[in-house]
């Protein structure tokens, strides 16, 4: 609750800031798409789990401007991420990097699917069709036959 208050109070002071963040203008549509993609996957370092696109905190504005500047300088997406990683660490990247510390995170879904397939195959192989078990259609037919007797 307090953190919300702080970031809102910061927002409050905005109209009086002499250098308000200029709205984003890109002449190149591809750059614009890359910009929106990047600010969606970069985290606002100050906020309670928001990306740069959704935050009006001062640092988020500065970082959006930084992303824009880097893109206009011709940096690639990877370079923009690296730039911010150098300054803020893994925290600012919503997509975790592929490192020894995140192997488990990225491989677990695949491993679980393999495990799931194994369970399915096992269940199917263990199928015992005991002769005493009839399927419902067969049961209904049996009942009709017995009724005739």
């Amino acid at each position, binding site marked *: 609750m307090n*953190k919300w208050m*702080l970031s809102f*109070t*910061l927002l409050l*002071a*905005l109209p*009086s*800031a*002499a*250098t308000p963040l200029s709205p984003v203008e890109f002449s190149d549509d591809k750059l614009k798409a890359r910009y929106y993609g990047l600010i969606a996957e970069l985290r606002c*370092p*100050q906020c*309670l789990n928001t990306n740069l696109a959704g935050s009006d*905190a*001062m*640092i988020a*504005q*500065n*970082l959006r*401007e*930084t992303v824009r500047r880097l893109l206009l300088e011709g940096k690639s997406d990877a370079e923009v991420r690296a730039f911010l990683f*150098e*300054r*803020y*660490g893994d*925290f600012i990247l919503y997509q975790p990097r592929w490192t020894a510390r995140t192997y488990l995170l990225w491989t677990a879904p695949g491993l679980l699917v393999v495990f799931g397939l194994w369970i399915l195959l096992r269940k199917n192989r263990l199928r015992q069709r005991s002769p005493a078990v009839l399927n419902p259609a067969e049961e209904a037919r049996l009942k009709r036959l017995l009724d005739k007797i």
Partner: protein
Amino acid sequence: MAKQSVLVPVLVFAGLVILLGFGFRLSDPSYLPSQKLGEPLPEFRLPNLLDESQWLTEADFLGEPFLLNVWATWCPSCLAEHDALTSIRQQHGVRIMGINYSDDPIKARRWLQDLGDPYDYHVIDAKGTLAVDLGVYGAPETFVVGADGTILYRHVGVVTEAVFEETLANRLLSAADQL
């Protein structure tokens, strides 16, 4: 289902509980450790707040350990720590560099006039580029910087006398000792 396979959910749950228990011992989830500790001050060339025709670079501050304080007039906590900074500077003779972050220089100068100026040096970081290079994520933040420009420590939030004595003072001293 075999008895062994029943143990799996129990074990997973036990692991989960232990993890969650550990969760309480961790730091405040919104606290970010600095990535810049041990690295030199980033390069910059920014105008002096008190004389905008003068440009300052990181080289102008080397020679003695100092505190680097990120502040702004729109930041209420900065107002709160202002008096503490003044008294720390007076009592301990510490050099403090002020980075005026994403602010209006006119308002900033008036603020210093009205409330007093605890800083030895001033820099205007209008676009926040220096702040981003430092890994700042909110004002106020205070860094301990060594004589050679190495960033030694970061404190996030308001600096008080107690904070200074507990965390900043000894780092400044040991940095001075290494000269």
